[in-house]
């Protein structure tokens, strides 16, 4: 017999079917009904149990600069993201180092934008830094019009203890210039755990 058919009390049936080349396997159901949202998991020997489904319920944040910031010509400068919309696990430092240091290891989706003030420059750039070094370069625009916004987005592998990410800005216009500041819309960075390590 390769099938186990359970007939509905009124009509129809549910059928469990063994593979054509079935081997010798025994799956033992757990006791109880489990909890809402749980799934069956095997111990590798056929003993099934109810376990919580893995979800990416890791840290998430959105931080922004509440004021504009002067950026010297040709100098990569860390953006002082000194305000927060949210910081679910208190992993973002908006007071001193302006960095995200998550407490769960994994792959984090980081997004950022920098809006520049009223100047026309040769180049502007937004970059995501990991542990003090450039990790992902975002938009690089030459001959920008006034008020340009540049963005950066990357998936960053962070170890959940000491690794951190920061937002840096670079502009080349021949002189110092400032980022824009009009509430939380202009200069910001956000991130969330996309997949645990």
């Amino acid at each position, binding site marked *: 017999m390769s099938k186990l058919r359970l007939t509905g009390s009124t009509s129809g049936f549910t059928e469990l079917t063994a593979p054509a080349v079935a081997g010798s396997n025994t799956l033992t159901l757990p006791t109880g009904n489990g909890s809402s949202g749980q799934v069956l998991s095997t111990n590798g020997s056929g003993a099934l149990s109810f376990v919580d489904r893995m979800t990416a319920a890791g840290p998430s944040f959105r931080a922004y600069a509440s004021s504009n910031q002067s950026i*010297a010509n040709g100098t990569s400068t860390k953006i002082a993201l000194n305000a927060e919309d949210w910081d679910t696990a208190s992993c973002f430092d908006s007071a001193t180092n302006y960095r995200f240091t998550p407490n769960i290891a994994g792959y984090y989706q980081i997004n950022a934008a920098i809006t520049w003030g009223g100047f026309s420059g040769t180049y502007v750039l937004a970059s995501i830094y990991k542990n003090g070094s450039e990790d992902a370069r975002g938009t690089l625009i030459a001959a920008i019009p006034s008020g340009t916004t540049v963005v950066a987005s990357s998936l960053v592998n962070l170890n959940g203890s000491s690794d951190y990410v920061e937002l840096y800005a670079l502009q*080349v216009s021949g002189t110092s210039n400032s980022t824009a500041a009009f509430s939380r819309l202009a200069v910001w960075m956000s991130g969330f755990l996309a997949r645990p390590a």
Partner: protein
Amino acid sequence: MTLYEQIIAIYPELADQQQLFINGTIALQNDSDGRGDYIRAWNHPTLPEPTADQLAALEVTP
């Protein structure tokens, strides 16, 4: 005078080579920690990195 302006004062020819400050040949950085601008990397093929004495001879505005 910013660090960039100091470097241009030492090497005026770099004023026309702005792309060097974008592509990593000359990397200036400021970590917004109050310590001001610094040279993170200097990979220019012919011009040597300015010495501390050269930079100190020029006024610095972090």
